[in-house]
C-alpha cells in the first residue's frame, strides 16, 4: 500500500560556511514520509539530525549552502513544491507552521518568555488561517484542553515559565497542531522531560497522529523511544544515513555495524548484570570527515583498503530495508537468494 509520500527528501546535502572553512553537516540524505507515518531519525549528537529537520522548513542560518541536486518535495494541492527553492518569507509561510510544524527539544526555551502562551498560539493561527482573533482564541483554548491541560482558559493567559515541564511540551504540541499541519517535526521532544512525563507525551503524540492523520518526523537519540513510537527508522552517522527500514527490521536484524553498536549499547532488562558495550571511540570532528565510509574509524569490522577508500553504496536488504555498508552486500545476496528460492 504505497501511497504518495507526503514529503520526499532527495539527495539532501547541507554545508555550512564557517571561519574554519566549509563544513559538511549532511551528505546525500534521502527519505520519504507517507501520510500517517512516523519516521524515526536516530543518531548521536552531531550526526546532522536536527540540521536535516530544520532544512525541511529552511530554518538553518544564512551561512547554509544546500547541495545542487538536493530537493525537498512537499506534496501540496496540485503540484509538489520544492521547499529548498522557496526563498521569500511569504512563500515559506506555507511550510513554516502551515503544512509543517515543529516541536523543539527545550519546551521552556522555545516559548518566548515575555509573551503569553495564548498570544503565541493566536499569532500562529492568525498567520495561517482566516480565523478571527476571537475564534483563534477559542480554538487555542480547545487545543490546550485537548492535550490535557486543565483549566485551559486560565492557562491561555499565562507565560511559559508558569507552566510545568510536561505541560509546556504539551502546550507546544497543542500549538504545533492547531494549524492542522500535514507533517509534524518533533526534535527530541521528550529528551528534556522526566521519564514518566515522557511516556505521557509519547502517548499523546500517538493519539494525535491517529486523530489528525499526519506524518511525523521523530528525531531522537533514544532507540527505546523509537521502538515505541515509529513505523520506520532511519539511522544517521556524521551526516550520512547508514541504515533505514521498518522498526522491526532494523531492530531485529540491524545490517550496519553502527546500528548494531547502538543497539548493543542499550541496557537490556533480561541481562542487567551484563556490561554495556558502547560504540568505541569518539565521533570525529565534522572538519575532518573520514574518507570512504564515514564510520570506518570506529568500526570493528572495517575492511582495510576498502572501507577507508571507497564510499559504500546503498544495499537493499528487504522491503524498504536499506543499509550503506560493504558487509551488508553479502547479506543482501543471501537475502536475494532466499527470496528466489521462495519464489
Amino acid at each position, binding site marked *: 500500500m504505497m501511497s504518495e509520500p507526503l514529503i520526499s527528501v532527495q539527495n539532501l546535502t547541507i554545508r555550512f560556511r564557517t571561519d574554519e572553512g566549509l563544513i559538511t553537516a549532511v551528505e546525500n540524505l534521502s527519505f520519504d514520509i507517507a501520510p500517517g507515518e512516523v519516521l524515526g531519525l536516530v543518531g548521536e549528537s552531531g550526526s546532522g539530525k536536527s540540521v536535516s529537520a530544520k532544512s525541511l522548513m529552511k530554518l538553518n542560518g544564512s551561512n547554509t549552502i544546500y547541495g545542487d541536486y538536493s530537493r525537498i518535495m512537499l506534496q501540496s494541492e496540485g503540484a509538489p513544491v520544492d521547499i529548498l527553492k522557496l526563498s521569500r*518569507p511569504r512563500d515559506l509561510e506555507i511550510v513554516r507552521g502551515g503544512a509543517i510544524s515543529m516541536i523543539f527539544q527545550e519546551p521552556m526555551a522555545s516559548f518566548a518568555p515575555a509573551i503569553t502562551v495564548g498570544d503565541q498560539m493566536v499569532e500562529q493561527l492568525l498567520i495561517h488561517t482566516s480565523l478571527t482573533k476571537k475564534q483563534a482564541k477559542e480554538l487555542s483554548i480547545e487545543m490546550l484542553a485537548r492535550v490535557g491541560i486543565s483549566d485551559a482558559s486560565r492557562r491561555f493567559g499565562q507565560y511559559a515559565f508558569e507552566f510545568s515541564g510536561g505541560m509546556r511540551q504539551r502546550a507546544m504540541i497543542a500549538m504545533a497542531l492547531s494549524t492542522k499541519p500535514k507533517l509534524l517535526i518533533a526534535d527530541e521532544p521528550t529528551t528534556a522531560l522526566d521519564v514518566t512525563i515522557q511516556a505521557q507525551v509519547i502517548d499523546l503524540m500517538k493519539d494525535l497522529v491517529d486523530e489528525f492523520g499526519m506524518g511525523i518526523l521523530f528525531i531522537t537519540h533514544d532507540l527505546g523511544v523509537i521502538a515505541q513510537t515509529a513505523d520506520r527508522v532511519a539511522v544517521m552517522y556524521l551526516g550520512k544515513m547508514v541504515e533505514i527500514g521498518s522498526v522491526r527490521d532494523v531492530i531485529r536484524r540491524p545490517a550496519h555495524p553502527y546500528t548494531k553498536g547502538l543497539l548493543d549499547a542499550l541496557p537490556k532488562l533480561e541481562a542487567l548484570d551484563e556490561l554495556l558495550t558502547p560504540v568505541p571511540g569518539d565521533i570525529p570532528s565534522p572538519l575532518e570527515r573520514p574518507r570512504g565510509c564515514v564510520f570506518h574509524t570506529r568500526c570493528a569490522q572495517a575492511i582495510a583498503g576498502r572501507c577507508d577508500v571507497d564510499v559504500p553504496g546503498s544495499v537493499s536488504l528487504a522491503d524498504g530495508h536499506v543499509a550503506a555498508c560493504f558487509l551488508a552486500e553479502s547479506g543482501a545476496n543471501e537475502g536475494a537468494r532466499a527470496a528466489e528460492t521462495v519464489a
Partner: protein
Amino acid sequence: MLQFVQFTLTRAAMAIVTLLLVSFIVFSLMEMVPGNCAERYLAFKNTQGSKITVEDIAAEEARLGLDRPFVVRWASWVGDVFIEGDFGDSCILRMSINGLLGQKIWLSLGICFAALFFAYLIAIPVGIISATANNPFANNTLRFVSYLGLAMPNFLLALMIMLFSTVVFGDTLTGLFSKEYRDAPWSVDKVLDFLSRAWLPILILGWSATAFALQTVRALMSDELGKLYVTAAQARGVFGWRLLWRYPARHALGPIVNSLGFDLNRVFNELPIVAIILTLTGAGSLLLEALARSNDQQLAGAIIFMLTASIVALNFFTDVLLAIIDPRVRRSVMGG
C-alpha cells in the same frame, strides 16, 4: 497590586538611601578641600581690598555654623535639601544656590535627557539592523563608526564642529539662545529659537552615548537572536520586522531599559566640558565655573547632587517600568 505598591515603596526607599549615601560622599568631598567657606569668602574679600583678621574668620565661621562637627553639618545640609529642597547659599557669590541654579538646571537636564533620547532613537533601529544584517561591509562600517564614537571624546567633536563652523560659515553656533532672546521671557519665538540652537549640544552630548547604546543594543539583540524561541517563532511562520520587534527586540528591552541610568551618567560626564566649548549657560558651565575658577564647593556640591539625584530617579522609574512591562520581573516582584 498590594505587592506592586510594596515593591515600589521598597525601591523608593532604596533610592533615598542611595541618595543619602551620595550626599555623604559629595559633602565629604566638599569638606576635604583645604580651607572652609568662611576662609575662602573672606580671602576673596581680601583681594578686593578689605583687611581680614583671624577674629573675622572665627566670627564668620560661627555665623555660618562651621564650628559644628562634620556629621551635624552634613545632617543639617541633607535635612535642608531633602525636606525643603534648599541647597543653602553659594559660598563665594553669597546668593541662594536655588536662585542661581533656578531654571538653568532644568534646561541642562532637559538637554541631557534629549541627548539620551536621541542616542536611543538612533541606537535601537541601527543596533537591530546591525545585529541581523549579514552584510560584512555595512557591519564593519557600523563597527568602525561606533568605535570612533567611543574613542573620540564629545568635547573634541564639539571643538571640531565649532572651529569648522566658525571658519566655514563664520557663525559660532554656540549658546542656547540668540542674543535677542537671551534675557527675554519665555515665548513661542524663544522656544523656537532655543530649538534651532539646542540641536547641536544635543547631538554632541548624545554622540558617545549613542556609540555605547549601539553596542549594548547590538550585543543584546544578537544574544536574543541566537535563542531557541526565535527559531521556534520562525518555524511558526513569523518573519520580518514583526519577528524582530515581537521577539528578540521585545526581550532585549529589559536590559536596555536597565542601562538607561548609566547612559544618563555618561551624558552628564560630558556636560561640563561641552558646555564650556559651546558656551552654554546651563548648570554644566556653572559647575565648571564653581570648580575651576572660584572654588565654590557649595555650588559644585549642589550641582553634582542634583545630577546624581536625577540618575537615581531615572533608575527608580526604570525599575518600576520594568516590573510593569516584563512579566519575568513582574513575577519575581509579585511573588507568583
